C-alpha cells in the first residue's frame, strides 16, 4: 500500500485524534522528544566540534607541546602563498560560477520552451545526471584523456588539422582554463536540472496571459519566470560556492596544483602545508581560520536560503 492510500483512509479519524491531544500530553511529548534528541545530537555535535578544538590546540602549541601564542596564525596569514591561493580560488570561481549558471539557465529555458516530447525531456534528465554522479577522481581521469599531451583528444584533433600540440595542463595560462572547463563540464548539468525543475513550477496562466498581451520571450523571462527561479538561483549559488571552496580531487589528478601554483586553490594549498611540508602548526592555524570564516559565511548566506521557513 502506498503512502497516498493510507492518508486518504485515515484523514477523518486523524482529525479527531489530533483534537484529543491535550496541552499536558503535548508538553510530555515535547520532553520525550528532547530526551530522544539530545543524547544523539549532543554526541554528534561533540564529535563534529572535536576537530575545531584540536586544530585550535595544535595551532597554539609547538611540536613539543609548549604554548607558542599566535605565532602559527601570524605565519599562516602572512604567507604570500596563502594570498596567491586565495587569488587563484577567486579567479576559478569567477570563471566557473557565471558560466555554469548562465549556461545551465540558458539550456533549461531552451528545453523548457521548445522540447515538448516527454520522452526526450526524460532522456535529457537522465543524461544531465551522469556528470554529476561521477566520482571527481574519475572526472580527472576523463579529462586527462582529453588534455594529455601525447594521447589526448584535443591534441589529436590539433595534430590532424596540422597544428602543433598544446600542453593544456602545463602551460600556466592554460592550466586554469583547463581545470575550469572540467568544473563547467561536471556542474552545468546540475544548474540545468535545478533551473528546469524551477521552470516547471511557473504558473502557466500568467505565461499565457503575457503571451496574449504580446510580451516578448525576454519579457516573459524577466517578469515572470525569473521570479520563480530567484530562490533557486540562490540555492545554486549556495551549493556551488561551498563546492568551489572545497575543490580538490579533479585538480589534484590533473595538475596537482601546478604549474607553479597557478591552480593551487585553497584546499590544495592547505593540503600542501599539512601533508607535503608537514607543517601541522601552520596548517592547523589555517584550518581554524577556514572553519571560522566558513561558519561566519554560512550564517550570512543561509539567511537568504529558501529552506526551512516555519
Amino acid at each position, binding site marked *: 500500500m502506498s*503512502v497516498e492510500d493510507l492518508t486518504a483512509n*485515515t484523514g477523518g479519524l*486523524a482529525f479527531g*485524534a*489530533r483534537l*484529543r491531544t491535550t496541552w499536558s500530553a503535548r508538553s510530555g*511529548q*515535547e520532553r520525550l*522528544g528532547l530526551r*530522544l*534528541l539530545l543524547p*544523539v545530537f549532543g554526541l*554528534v555535535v561533540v*564529535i563534529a566540534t572535536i*576537530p575545531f578544538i584540536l*586544530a585550535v590546540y595544535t595551532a597554539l602549541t609547538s611540536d613539543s607541546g609548549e604554548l607558542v601564542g599566535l605565532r602559527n596564525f601570524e605565519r599562516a596569514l602572512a604567507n604570500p602563498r596563502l594570498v596567491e591561493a586565495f587569488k587563484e580560488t577567486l579567479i576559478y570561481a569567477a570563471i566557473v560560477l557565471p558560466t555554469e549558471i548562465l549556461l545551465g539557465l540558458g*539550456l533549461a529555458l*531552451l528545453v523548457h520552451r*521548445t522540447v515538448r516530447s516527454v520522452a526526450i525531456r526524460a532522456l535529457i534528465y*537522465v*543524461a544531465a*545526471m*551522469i*556528470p554529476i*554522479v*561521477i*566520482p571527481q*577522481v*574519475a572526472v*580527472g*581521469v*576523463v*579529462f586527462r*584523456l*582529453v588534455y*594529455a599531451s601525447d*594521447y589526448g*583528444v584535443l591534441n589529436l584533433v590539433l595534430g590532424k588539422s596540422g597544428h602543433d600540440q598544446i600542453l593544456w595542463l602545463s602551460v600556466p595560462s592554460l592550466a586554469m582554463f583547463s581545470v575550469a572547463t572540467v568544473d563547467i*563540464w561536471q556542474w552545468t*548539468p546540475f544548474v540545468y536540472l*535545478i533551473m528546469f*525543475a524551477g521552470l516547471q513550477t511557473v504558473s502557466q496562466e500568467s505565461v499565457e496571459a503575457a503571451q496574449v498581451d504580446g510580451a516578448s520571450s525576454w519579457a516573459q523571462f524577466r517578469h515572470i519566470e525569473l521570479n520563480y527561479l530567484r530562490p*533557486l538561483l540562490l540555492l545554486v549559488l549556495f551549493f556551488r560556492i561551498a563546492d568551489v571552496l*572545497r575543490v*580538490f*580531487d579533479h585538480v589534484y589528478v590533473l595538475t596537482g596544483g601546478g604549474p607553479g601554483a597557478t591552480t593551487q586553490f585553497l584546499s590544495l594549498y*592547505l*593540503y600542501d602545508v*599539512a601533508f607535503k611540508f608537514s607543517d601541522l602548526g601552520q596548517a592547523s592555524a589555517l*584550518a581554524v581560520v*577556514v*572553519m571560522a570564516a*566558513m*561558519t561566519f559565511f*554560512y*550564517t550570512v548566506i*543561509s539567511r537568504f536560503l529558501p*529552506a*526551512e521557513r*516555519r
Partner: protein
Amino acid sequence: MPRSVTRVLTAVVLVIVVVLFAFPLYYMVATSLKPRAELFAAVPTLVPQAPTLRNYAEVLSDKNGSTLLINSVIAGVSATVLALIVAFAICYPITRLPVSRRVRSFVLNWSLSLRFLPPIAVVIPYFALIRALGLYNQLPALILVYTIFNLPLSIWMLKGFLEEIPLEIEEAAQTDGATRWQAFRSVLLPLSRTGILAAAIILFAFDWAEFLFAFILTATPQAMTFPVGVQGLVTQFDIIYNDMAAGGVIAILIPLALMIGARRYVMTGLTFGVIREK
C-alpha cells in the same frame, strides 16, 4: 522565426551540447578497451580496433583493484547504515514530536552548516587524532569520518521523507492501543522504506566517490578505497592510459547504476530536499 526553423536550431544546439558532454566519457570507455599496442599507434584511434577486457583484469587483479573495491564497499555500506541510524534518531523527534521550533531549526541549520566546511580543513586535525588513536590506515577511521560528513545530507533527506508521512497515521495506531515504539516499528518504519532506500543509495554513492579523506587517512591497500587507487594510476610516473581509463570506468559504473536506479531522488539529495520530483 517560423516554428520549424526554431525546432531545427534547438535540435542542433542540443546535439552539440550532448556531444560535448558525452564525448569525453566515450573516449575514456574506448581507451579502456584498447590493447596496449594500440595505445602507441602514431595517430590514436577513436574506436578500439581490437577491443579487449585485459585492462580491466589487470587493474582488478595485478593492481589490487579488487581489494580496494571491497574496501570501498565495506566503508560505504557501514558508513551509510550508521549515518541513517543516527539521522533517524535525530529526525524522529524533530518530525514526529512537538519539539520546539528553535530546537528544530537549530538542529537543521547546524547540520546544514557542516556542508559548508571544506573537508581539508577538517581532515587536518582529524589526521592527528586518528593517528593518536592508532586508527591510521584502518577502515573504521574512514567509516567514522564518512558517517559524520554525510550526516547533514542524511538528516535533511530523511526529514523530507518523514514529513511527507502524516502524523495522524501513527496517532491513529496509538489511539488503537499501540505503544509509541510499536507505532514506530509497524507503521512509520514500513512507510518510510522508500525514503530510507533512496537516501541509502545516494549516501553510498557519495561515500563511494569520496577521495580526499581516504587519500589522507590511508596508506596501503589494507584500507585504501578505489578512488585512491585510481588516483595512483593517474599520477604515477609513466601513465598507462588504458589501465587508468579502465580504473575510471570501474569507479563510475557503480554510482552511475545506483543513481539511475534512484533517479527520482538524486536531485532531492543533492539539494538537501529543496527540489522534489513528483
